[in-house]
């Protein structure tokens, strides 16, 4: 067993354990913190796979921005502990069954397609430096890159519109009352 496999094994155990911790912890703040661990471990796996740009983007976007957004919303709404009803009757069994079927499917795929038993070797040339990724983004993938900017803009506007409905209504109402007063006066 090479050192690479041992490192991968340790990281994989931490990743799966943190994912299961996220799944079963009753406090959703703990879930978000388990998610940070999981994202960081996967970022380390990206580094091992020779993708430093993606690894650091993972840290900044996922472990940084997205989880902070989650924590912000959890704490703002005060829904750390949800004391609701349990899952629908029989749902837990069906869920585990569906998960097991999916895992079995992947296992069968692995055994069946023996062509996928190859080993990931480090590339001789530096494949994924930030320079090469930038080159690809701004030459071959310019259109999707610009579309992404549009998606982000629409998402920001959508988030603002969704979270401030009462304010706009109250503004309209105050405007109406002001207009009424003006017509009276």
């Amino acid at each position: 067993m090479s050192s690479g496999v041992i490192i991968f094994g340790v990281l994989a155990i931490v990743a799966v354990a943190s994912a299961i911790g996220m799944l079963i912890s009753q406090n959703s703040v703990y879930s978000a913190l388990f998610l940070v661990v999981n994202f960081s471990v996967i970022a380390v796996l990206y580094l091992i796979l020779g993708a430093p740009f993606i690894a650091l983007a993972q840290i900044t976007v996922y472990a940084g921005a997205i989880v902070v957004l989650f924590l912000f919303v959890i704490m703002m709404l005060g829904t750390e502990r949800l004391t609701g009803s349990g899952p629908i009757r029989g749902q837990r069994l069906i869920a585990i069954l569906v998960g097991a079927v999916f895992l079995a499917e992947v296992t069968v795929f692995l055994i069946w397609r023996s062509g996928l038993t190859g080993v990931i070797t480090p590339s001789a040339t530096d494949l994924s430096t930030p320079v090469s990724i930038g080159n690809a983004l701004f030459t071959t993938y310019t259109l999707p890159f610009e579309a992404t900017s549009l998606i982000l803009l629409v998402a920001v506007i959508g988030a603002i519109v969704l979270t401030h409905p009462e304010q706009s209504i109250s503004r309209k109402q105050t405007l109406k009352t002001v207009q009424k007063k003006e017509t009276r006066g």
Partner: protein
Amino acid sequence: MVPISYYLGLSAILFVTGILGVLLRRNALVIFMSLELMFNASNLLFVAFSAYYKILTGQIFVFFVMAVAAAEVAVGLALMVAIFRTKHSVDVDQVNVLKG
């Protein structure tokens, strides 16, 4: 060096954990986190195959997935806040007004 099948297995396990999170949990925020977990499982496989075949395209795709996931989380959490304002709960069982 690590075989590609190990990464496939890890990704499958993480993805199944995400599926179980979506199916089992009632808290809408935890369901969102499970979605992120599934995104990450697929991203891991993209990067693994990118390293396996020595092609950069997989990593570019991961970049776009990250951007779209960030947008999705922003809109989704805004929806959560809007639902919480009307329902005073983020329990997905409470959101059943559209039920026929």
